[in-house]
């Protein structure tokens, strides 16, 4: 510090140089960021603007950024071309909600037991849970398919939801979260005579809200977007989820990409709920990343 003081003038110059340097680097950063985020967002922009163009305009003007006349009727047209679209949406919502609720209950109970109840074999059993994280879900698909066939659960909501009942990652995550709750709170609740279920619902869960919300959001998005498993086990049009419906629409009603304006309208409609969720819950996405990432 002393040498610093002695060379006041020099350090002033240095600071000024650094300030201009930081201004330049800041401008450069903004330019780079603007370009890259525009590039990343470009497919969305393209999807939405093409969804609002007439087929003729779309084919004739490949570089046109904004439609000359907004063709809101495209959305009506695609909806009429695929009357089951509402059904697909409901199916996806049921699947996402079902899996999320189930995983939440199962993982909370297990994580609570692993943090707050002592029983023989606890360490080994938790190790078993963690080691299943190593199994890629694809490896389970053939046997799970056979189980569903035997249970006559193919092409049902049970088949879509129940095989995903447990999330080892969820148990791991919640155990991390629950174990950061101060023990004194448990002891206080215990003196009040609270049983384990009440302790879980009235002490642990309210204090773990951030991690729960994060898990719920990521789970809902993940299962709303899922494609592979529903592709394997659903067959009737009434059981199609949204992702399947989109590909079927592309092949059947879009004629393999001749009616792009309708395909883009369908895509935009399918993505819209997620965009809304993201706008509302952006904070949780970002915070969730921070908690899951740093602890994982």
């Amino acid at each position: 510090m002393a040498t610093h003081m002695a060379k006041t003038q020099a350090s002033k110059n240095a600071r000024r140089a650094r300030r201009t340097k930081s201004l330049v680097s800041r401008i450069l950063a903004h330019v780079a960021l603007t370009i890259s985020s525009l590039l990343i967002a470009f497919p969305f922009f393209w999807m939405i603007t093409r969804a609002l163009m007439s087929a003729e305009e779309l084919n004739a003007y490949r570089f046109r950024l904004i439609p000359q006349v907004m063709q809101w009727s495209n959305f009506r047209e695609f909806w009429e071309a695929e009357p089951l679209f509402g059904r697909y949406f409901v199916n996806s919502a049921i699947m996402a909600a079902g899996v999320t609720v189930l995983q939440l209950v199962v993982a909370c109970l297990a994580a609570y037991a692993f943090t707050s109840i002592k029983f023989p074999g606890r360490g080994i059993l938790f190790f078993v849970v963690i080691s299943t994280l190593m199994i890629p879900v694809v490896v389970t698909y053939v046997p799970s398919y056979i189980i569903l066939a035997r249970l006559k659960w193919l092409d049902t909501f049970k088949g879509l939801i129940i095989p995903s009942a447990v999330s080892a990652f969820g148990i791991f995550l919640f155990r991390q979260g629950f174990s950061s709750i101060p023990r004194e709170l448990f002891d206080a609740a215990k003196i009040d005579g609270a049983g384990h279920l009440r302790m879980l619902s009235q002490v642990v869960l309210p204090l773990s809200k951030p991690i729960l919300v994060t898990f719920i959001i990521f789970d809902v998005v993940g299962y709303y977007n899922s494609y592979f498993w529903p592709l394997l086990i659903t067959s009737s049009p009434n059981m199609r989820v949204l992702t399947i419906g989109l590909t079927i629409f592309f092949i059947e009603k879009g004629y393999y990409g001749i009616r792009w304006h309708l395909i883009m309208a369908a895509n935009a409609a399918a993505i819209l709920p997620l965009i809304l969720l993201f706008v509302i819950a952006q904070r949780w996405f970002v915070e969730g990343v921070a908690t899951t990432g740093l602890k994982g």
Partner: protein
Amino acid sequence: MTIRSNHGPVSRPGTDAKASPAGQRRAPALGSQRIRDWITGYLFILPAFISLAVWWLYPLVYSVYLGFTEWDFMSPQKKWVWLENYVKIFTHREFRRVLWNTAYFSVGTVVLGLLGGLILALLLNRKIRGLPIYRALMFSPWITPTVAAALVWLWIYNRDMGIFNAILSLFGVGRIDWIGSGQGLFRMWAMPSVIIFSVWKTVGYNMVYFLAGLTTIPTELYEAAEIDGAGSWAKFRSVTWPLLSPMTFFLFVVSTIGTFNAFDQFRVLTRGGPGDATRTMVYYLYQNAFEFFDVGYGSAVAIVLFTLILLLTLLQFRASRSWVHYG
């Protein structure tokens, strides 16, 4: 990993109960409370373990069994064929191609995805206006369904209508059949196209993680490095990279596993084609088990995939000792 919680009656030393049987008898309430706790504990983990057993552990074991058989989902009998499926896998020429495709896709997507994410995070890691907007735009591909996004990209890549070729035509470059079967030099674009899509899909996600990691680095360390006369690169090498390495490692492992499991984009964009140019292990498994109904062979592929991911992850953890620094 393990938690030693101060749970239960702390005042009761364990030796007490062991030493005098009388003491044990004197406190029957405590003993039964303990047993009741055990039962509650087991009941609480029961749903998780039933699901794990039925939908994860049993399928894994059953896959191993199926891998030794020949079956088509339909016939009443499975034929036990010993190692025939595995011999077929490792002698088939097509499997070598599948393995190469998987490695190509994985390395390309992971390296570019992490590098891009890191660069974006470094750009954003300052007091900058519009951070939430940049972050939201970059993160948005990750929340959209891969299928829906891939359908948009299908069009971007389209040979006749797509925007990529439209832009290239401005520079007089001929039409590239990005994801179709082109000829000559234009043949090789299918896998790079899928990689570009996958990087686009994941780069914002990586960026958000890196940014979370960067914000935990204390600014004093940078100031100290500056006093030592370190330039930007030296600061990155000596402060940022080592302190960010746990996060880099986490993303490295997670994205590698993710690429080995990728299916949706292949299904929508290329269906493993043209020819077998984008047929990865997961797609190969899918085709054999669910298109050709060769259940035994498909299961054997699944076991090979599982083993490969396991070995790779262990290798990554082993190698991490030399470059990951935990604070």
